[in-house]
């Protein structure tokens, strides 16, 4: 039952914001199941594959919304390379130090988004 709830909430979040929902799935899986943390991140990626595919299809059929395949490739293909690098790093080093760097990057992005 908790897994069904996690799926529903993550799916809503995913389509509303154009994200995968992993920011909810990973901590909720760790809280609600006995799955170890790194397994939670791997399992989350697999679940997000289904979520994002459903979201892409539903948005593609939505009038007035464009899924831009060229731009998706422009950011998504470098990201596939980054994901391979990220999983490799995750197996070898603590990611604590990297968290702070990403926090700073996201804080900068948020400020840029909120500028008029």
């Amino acid at each position, binding site marked *: 039952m908790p897994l069904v709830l996690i799926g529903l909430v993550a799916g809503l979040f995913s389509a509303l914001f*154009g994200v995968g929902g992993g920011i909810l799935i990973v901590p909720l899986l760790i809280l609600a199941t006995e799955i170890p943390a790194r397994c939670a991140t791997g399992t989350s990626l697999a*679940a997000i594959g*289904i979520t994002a*595919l459903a979201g892409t299809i539903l948005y593609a059929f939505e009038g007035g919304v464009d899924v831009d395949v060229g731009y998706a490739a*422009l950011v998504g293909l470098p990201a596939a390379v*980054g994901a391979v690098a990220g999983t490799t790093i995750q197996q070898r080093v603590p990611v604590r130090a990297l968290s702070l760097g990403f926090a700073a990057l996201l804080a900068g992005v948020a400020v840029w988004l909120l500028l008029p």
Partner: protein
Amino acid sequence: MSAGTVAAAILLGFAAGLLAGLFGVGGGILFVPALLGLGLGQLDAEATSLLAILPTVIAGTWRQRRYGNVRWRVALLVGFTSILGVQAGVVIATALSEDLLRRLFAVLVLGVAAHLAWRARQPTPYAAGA
């Protein structure tokens, strides 16, 4: 569109992939701003971000599967039930104004930044060997 904008989008894409591999997310939190920077509107950026997530999580899942870190039964259950939530999310997102959606998204980005900063201060659950 300038070469600098394209280079920034590629770099943000790569950073999104690193986030995905490290934290088990899709990377949309960086795809959406990158796509906004390329000139897409909020809703188009979100829809396009979902497509960009696919190669990212396919590569990430492929790697994590080799490390034995994917619980397939759980992933399929969460993934397939998420489709119902996705349907609701599409309805809500298309009903909101793009300006409000963009502000909500900015709040989300700030929240994730705070979450990561807080996590950096905790004994990490994702440490090597954990």
